């Protein structure tokens, strides 16, 4: 059985025509949050924690979460977007506080080491790479690589280790999370203006295996490969995470069968009775108060919400439609395809699937084994989610192509890739679900992070309308969205 799902682009694209009915209902609130993704939810949490309980959230989809959504079939939950959170840096106390609230971080032991809930982490085998016709235990290619390649790998990782620790005169990390806390020294601004691939050339990195690894890593976090992302972003992938919070767990990640939708669950207490789903905001007017028009796709009518202050936590291409004067042409959003496949139990034979299974030289980003964290002796059907981002300089074209693709075409392209490692996979497939995300994540191309466009887009309007979204950080990760929502909410009260 083949099935296609996706974000509600049909409703979203009505913003182009703005052909909505006159408003027939008026709602008053102190704070209005437009968008129920992680930024919006993080803002709600901040309001609530500061006893500001007069707020509402408008969300276009039928649930909160944005990119942190999930699906579920008979055998497992599975992610429909972001699916893990690396252990935070010890400096990121806001996230650590949130993890404690979620009972993921359970306290400290007698040596001051964090005690973490191991059920919410990955187990061995964490990752494996299909390289030279067999699976190896690490994503970094190893088997049969040349001495020169090994030297380059060592040199690259050594450089990253030093970048990881580098700080400027003010004590700011060169590469920090959130990126806002990073140093703005000239050398770094220069790195942000150049392509990662050029920086690699400059430093004589040329081995095929290393370049593949870096390309894969960038696509995995940013959607685009080394040809398109900035050198700053490319290095940030390796140097941003300090692995300094826990000696024991180091570079582990938190994950769940449903991906980051689990984290969204933990926010639900802050949106109880305050979330209006299936609402598309199409107009915001600023006067004494802020008047927001929203089309309610359930009741099929337009509502006017009058708020003292509004927080827009939608991506900039949506703000461009809502506000006539805002421009988002310099913001690139990479389309993604997630394919969740139900496979017969026998798939993989005696080999245990790793949590993250990557195929060298592949077009996609490999697949996640969604039942990895089951503690029982695995039985029955297996569920995997295959990730693919469209790394290109023309995201618009790729997006249009993705929207046009039908089930058979999608299936053929996914299987063509998976067959490199699993030639017989087709015999085991019971069901495939394709999830299309047109504007999945902001691409940190040169100038995206520290450039002018992002700085302008962050500016509040008249102290009444504010903006927060991971695309304003330039990197689409949970920590950035969390920071954006929280920081902006703080400015509002």
């Amino acid at each position: 059985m083949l099935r296609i799902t996706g974000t509600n682009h049909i409703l979203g694209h009505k913003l182009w025509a703005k052909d909505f009915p006159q408003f027939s209902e008026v709602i008053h609130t102190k704070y209005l949050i437009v968008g129920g993704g992680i930024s919006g939810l993080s803002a709600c949490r901040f309001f609530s924690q500061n006893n500001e309980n007069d707020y509402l959230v408008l969300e276009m989809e039928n649930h909160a979460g944005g990119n942190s959504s999930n699906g579920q079939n008979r055998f497992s939950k599975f992610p429909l977007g972001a699916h893990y959170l690396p252990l935070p840096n010890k400096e990121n106390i806001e996230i650590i506080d949130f993890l404690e609230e979620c009972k993921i971080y359970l306290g400290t032991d007698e040596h001051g080491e964090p005690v973490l809930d191991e059920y919410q982490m990955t187990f061995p085998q964490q990752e494996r790479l299909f390289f030279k016709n067999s699976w190896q235990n690490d994503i970094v290619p190893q088997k049969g690589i040349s001495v020169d390649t090994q030297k380059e790998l060592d040199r690259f990782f050594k450089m990253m280790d030093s970048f990881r620790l580098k700080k400027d005169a003010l004590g700011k990390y060169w590469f920090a999370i959130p990126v806002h806390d990073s140093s703005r020294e000239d050398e770094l601004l220069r790195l942000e203006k150049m392509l990662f691939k050029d920086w690699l050339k400059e430093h004589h990195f040329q081995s095929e295996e290393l370049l593949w690894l870096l390309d894969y890593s960038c696509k995995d976090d940013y959607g685009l490969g080394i040809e398109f992302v900035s050198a700053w972003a490319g290095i940030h992938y390796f140097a941003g995470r300090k692995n300094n919070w826990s000696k024991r767990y180091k570079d582990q990640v938190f994950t769940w069968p449903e991906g980051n939708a689990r984290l969204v669950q933990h926010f639900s207490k802050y949106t109880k009775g305050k979330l209006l789903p299936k609402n598309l905001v199409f107009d915001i007017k600023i006067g004494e108060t802020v008047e927001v028009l929203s089309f309610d796709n359930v009741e099929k009518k337009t509502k006017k919400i009058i708020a003292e202050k509004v927080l827009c936590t939608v991506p900039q291409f949506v703000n461009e439609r809502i506000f006539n004067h805002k421009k988002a042409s310099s913001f690139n959003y990479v389309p993604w395809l997630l394919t969740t496949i139900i496979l017969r139990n026998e798939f993989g034979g005696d080999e245990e699937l790793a949590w993250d299974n990557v195929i060298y030289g592949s077009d996609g980003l490999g697949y996640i084994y969604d039942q990895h964290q089951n503690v029982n002796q695995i039985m029955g059907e297996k569920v995997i989610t295959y990730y693919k981002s469209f790394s290109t300089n023309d995201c618009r074209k790729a997006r249009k192509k993705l929207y046009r693709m039908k089930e058979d075409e999608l299936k053929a392209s996914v299987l063509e890739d998976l067959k490199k490692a699993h030639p017989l996979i087709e015999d085991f497939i019971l069901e495939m679900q394709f999830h299309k995300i047109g504007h999945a994540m902001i691409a940190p191309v040169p100038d995206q992070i520290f450039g002018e466009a992002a700085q302008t887009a962050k500016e509040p309007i008249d102290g009444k309308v504010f903006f927060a979204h991971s695309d304003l950080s330039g990197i689409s990760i949970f920590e950035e969205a969390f920071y954006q929502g929280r920081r902006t909410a703080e400015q509002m009260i």
Partner: protein
Amino acid sequence: MDKKRISLELLLLFSVFVIATCGLIYELVAGALASYLLGDSVKQFSFIIGVYLFSMGVGSYLAKFVKGNLIDKFIEIEILVGIIGGISSVVLFVLFNTLAHFESVLYLFVFFTGCLVGVEIPLLMNILKDRVKFKDLVSNVFAFDYIGALLASILFPLVLIPKLGIVKTPLFFGLINISIAIFLCFYLKKELSKPISLRIKSIAAFALLVGLFIFSDAILSYSEEKLYGENVVYTKSSPYQRIVLTRNNHEFRLYLNNNLQFSSTDEYRYHEALVHPAMSMAKNIDNILVLGGGDGFAVREILKYKEVKKISLVDLDGEMTHFFKTNETMRRLNQSSLSNPKVEVINKDAYIWVKDSKKKFDVVIIDFPDPSNYSLGKLYSLQFYKELERLTKPETKIVVQTTSPYFAPKSFWCIEKTMNQIFPFTAAYHTYVPSFGEWGFSMASYEPVHNRIYRKLPNLKYYDYNFSQLSYFNKDMKVKEVEVNRLDNQILVRYFDEEWGKVQ
């Protein structure tokens, strides 16, 4: 007319020869099968020969009641012998896997085959009595009968069992039986009153046996014998594992996914060492939890303590517990422990069951498969023992089978250390099990482990309550530094792989 008479006589005498050969083959197959599956070959052969001869006598007696066209009847009996004798092995093999009353079915088969063969000789003499002189008739019939018997008893061990095996041999002879019937149907059609119906019956029977002959390998996965080099008596693929039981003389061995689980000759050493130290040192033994151990042997040992009120056995595999609960031979080995009213068999995943359970137990006995993969490794993790902690009381004793301290010392001490993170007192101990080698366990509790023995059983074969003797380790079974096995590092699986990789 004369020519025809002679050829009929010869033909029927040849049939006698074939019947005798086949009959004896069936008898030999039954005897071999019985000693092979049940053991004690002297007894099995003796009983089967006795029953067979007796039932031949019964058949001979019954022959005088056969009426109507005797040649018709002769052919019908020929077909019946072919079918019953031919399928005997297949049916008995399949039944051994599923049926509790295997022996009675076996003897029923022997009885029917004997009866039918017994009917045939007098019947034949009746047919030929008007055509041959009585003196010649008796001599010839018995001569052919005994020659056939000799041929069968020589062929059986020298040619048939090595070449065809115990399942195909009777099928092959069934086919010969029925071929004779088919030939007679056509050749003697003028002498028959219902030639058409006899032909259909005989050809259908032939087709059935040919089918079974072709598919017998598939039905019984017979080829596994080669793998084990022992006689495979039971195989079953459950959703979780492949269960294979083999027998060699008096010894049964159980393999799960090709790993030896027990040998019936020395499993008492393993199970006594697993169960009795904890049972004797626990203050109370009302409620016992057994995780794994679907063979019922640990439960058998626990049931020796009459004070035990309830045993909860959690084993993932329903096929496994069903087999050990119903199979006659296995029941003899585990003394029907799984059918005891004190025992509750729970076919659930042990990790999930422990995680969800709220009951508390006085003794917990853990007999999981070795941590040879990451799924199994979770059952030896710190997190698992944390979950288990909730099911314990301050006086509870926990014992875990912890692989071999000789072959896999790091794995062994890693489990002990991991348990020790949760339970303040642990004591590792070991014993020698010939079919496994040196094997080990760890006992854990909230108070020093070997301080007091609360109860002793008088009749154990191996354990003498001298615990300190088992807890002494020589230098070659000790290691210094091992890590704790956590879900996120699964270090145990790596130790295990590294250490057993060297052995195998």
